[in-house]
């Protein structure tokens, strides 16, 4: 399991990157992250929604009420222009951390 601090820090870039592929809703976002991380990256389900709402209030994403296959109301989220900019910055920063870590690890094996 991944530490909760890292899970929290990665929530925003992951949500932005998932929504960059098209609009989605809370349950699907959680399932997708779980599947892509082989279940190692797990949020407390309910905690996703305050994060989504905060991102919406900051103008990164927007939402609309739609309908699920069963006819129930479902809230769909999609990326806004500021969200795309934020996502690019997240990618840049996480890539930098990744490259520094990779470099240090390679040096250990030299």
């Amino acid at each position, binding site marked *: 399991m991944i530490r909760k601090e890292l899970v929290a820090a990665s929530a925003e870039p992951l949500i932005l990157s998932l929504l960059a592929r098209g609009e989605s809703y809370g*349950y699907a976002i959680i399932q997708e992250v779980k599947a892509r991380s082989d279940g190692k990256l797990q949020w*407390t389900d*309910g905690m996703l929604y305050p994060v989504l709402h*905060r991102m919406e*209030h900051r103008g990164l994403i927007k939402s609309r009420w739609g309908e699920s296959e*069963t006819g*129930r109301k479902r809230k769909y989220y999609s990326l806004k222009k500021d969200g795309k900019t934020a996502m690019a910055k997240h990618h840049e920063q996480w890539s930098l951390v990744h490259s520094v870590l990779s470099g240090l690890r390679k040096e250990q094996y030299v």
Partner: protein
Amino acid sequence: MFDLEKSIADWRQQMLAAGIKTPVPLEELENHLREDIAQQMQSGLSAPQALGIAVKKIGQAPELKREFKKTGIPMEIQKIIKLAGVICVTVALFCQLFTCPPFVFAFGFSLMTRVLLLAVWAITVATTVLSWRYNHKLLPVIRNQPLRRAVGIVCYMGCLLWMRFVLFHLPEFATGSLSLLVFLFGSEWTVMAILGGVGHGLEKAVSRHDLKTAS
């Protein structure tokens, strides 16, 4: 006999009792709970087992409430604030446009006075419009939410005081002059637009700062 609908209604009541009162989050959480229950039941679990797991996964109400409280001003209220801003600015500009230029050219002011009056008018128009658009770039980032709200309330009180002054004192001077009354009415909306812009700008300054630092 286990009643799934009743159990979900009970869970909803527990969430409400714990303080998650806003309809939108609760509606979303309930939808999530139902989707998870359906998924678990498709995997072969019984309804009570599926409900138990889904409720556990969704988390405790006090923790959720704490997180939702950090969310800030709801989107719906932000839209109302923006609409109020647009109305204030539009009414203010409309009144200014129909009273200021005739006032400047109606009396026997000297050229210099007219230029000065027009300059003051132009600055007021610019401030009225731009305070909503660009205030967040000039105003400080006040991270302390109660302090930020207090400044917003002071601005609101300022509007009320100005309205009281305009409504109960200035009309005495404007008796019989329709254009002066319109001018006063416009100035009232101008003050509201400018002070409203300050309150809005403070909130926007924080959210913009958060956007920059987080990303």
